């Protein structure tokens, strides 16, 4: 994976990624602060990719201890990702079912 990635490329990617992040959130209604924070938090669990890479590389060199460390890391990251997305969905589900119920009542 790293064969194609030079430092120069990596820094450009970092710069453009940061700029994109700055642009994406301009105006957020306060209602959404909590879910947005929770959702962005789930995305930051993208370190699963790093944990996976660690395990696989440790696997090819037969390093059991390192694989175990990677697995713990993977566990932490997935706890963040799965838990984060599900809990965000739970919150947002409450918002979206609102208008439907209102119509029912009236």
């Amino acid at each position, binding site marked *: 994976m790293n064969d194609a*990635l030079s430092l120069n490329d990596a820094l450009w990617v970092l710069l453009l990624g940061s700029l994109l992040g700055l642009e994406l959130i301009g105006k957020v209604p306060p209602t959404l602060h909590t879910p947005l*924070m*929770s959702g962005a938090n789930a995305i*930051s*669990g993208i370190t699963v990719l790093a944990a996976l890479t660690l395990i696989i590389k440790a*696997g090819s060199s037969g390093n059991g201890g390192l694989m175990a460390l990677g697995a713990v890391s*993977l566990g932490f990251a997935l*706890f963040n990702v799965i838990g984060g997305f599900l809990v965000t969905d739970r919150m947002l589900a409450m918002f979206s079912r609102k208008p439907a119920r209102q119509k029912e009542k009236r």
Partner: protein
Amino acid sequence: MTAAVVIKYAIELVAVLLLALGIKGLSKVRSARAANQIAAVALALAVLGVLINFLSTSGIDSSAWLWIIGGTVVGGLLGAITSQRVPMTAMPETVALFNGCGGMSSLLVALGVALDPLAGSDGEGTGALVAGISIVVSVFVGAITFSGSVVAMGKLQGWLDTPAWMQSKLRHVINIGLAAVSLVAAIALIASGGDQGLWLLVIGSSLLGIGVTLSIGGADMPVVISLLNSYSGVAAAAAGFVVGSQMLIVAGAMVGAAGLILTQVMCNAMNRSLVNVLFGGALGASASAADQGEYQGITSCSAEECALTLETAQRVVFVPGYGLAVAQAQHILREVAELLEAQGIDVAYAIHPVAGRMPGHMNVLLAEADVPYEQLIEMETINPEFPRTDVVIVLGANDVVNPQARNDSSSPLYGMPVLNVEEATTVFVVKRGLSAGYAGIKNSLFERPNTSMVFGDAKKVLSGLAQELRELGVGKAKVG
């Protein structure tokens, strides 16, 4: 370029695009839920991309598969269970917990690569320097994110208090000392790659995370969590440099930058500056003697009297606070509101930007109790309407209705936007006692002549109120 490489790049590009759409969509009410799902799909695609890439090149050892499956099952299951079990009132601490775990993951990856460089980005000369720096950043930020998030969670749960020495200037000395230790360790690690430097860095930055977070008051915790969320993005980007993954760098940078903006937006909503939150110490620690004084001229009344006043009102506004949610009284509140509405009384809920424990938290809590979304009115909109309001019922909120924030320039709350409930004809404050609010400051609203305290647990008072209203025949007119 083999087909597998092309596929890998295609998957990564789609994943990045979906992530960007996801974050964008999360900032609009209508698209938020779909956007969250899109982001989840993007993450799944990114994982798929990594697996395909390795399968087509070096292959994946069967023992590696075992560890992958093990980590996935344990982490995923625990995450899924936690997300479904946790009460909505505990949302801020839950986000802190998840976030800390993300930081821990980046920390562990960097640790693994530092202990066994073969696993990381292979490089010579500048490559080694870059690898060293990215490991340092990943360990440093990852450790701060983890320890800081755990402390934030502990404070929100009420497990941790701010120790006295943390209120003094001494904490700055200690934190600067810890930062210096981390810096020395980082330089040692980059220069010689020794294990001592690595462990010292882990310990130094973990303690720094604790030291910085512990002195921050509970009311400011949401800002801290949002900032730590941004950090965990930075840690992920650094981990991307460590293992050489473009996808990780993009996503980490995006979350890092977006988190920073969100933190700023939240600070604005709470009228706090980020510098003040981080270095100002706990709010209320500096409260003047006048703020701590005894209350005078308090009027209190029963649920019955409250019901009688409500019966004749035309317009009623509820001001829900965190205390309401803790008492699990949102559902009974909705019942009371429905009784009043059936009587033809105009009902609204005034939502302060930081009602609950985090901006937007109260909206989630009321939505859980099926309160109609249209009745939740934001502060700017409802403030001019208070003079035309007959009855305001404050439920478990305190600092967000404190008139001192407008009138008293010596108050620590001064300048914070508040709900001007005292402009209404009658104000009922439902509260368990006269204890101070989250910020630890006395509330002059309670002493106003048009304010009556209804002492008791929000749930009990509201059930009592519902019963009194029914006995008065309120709500029967159209329902029955």
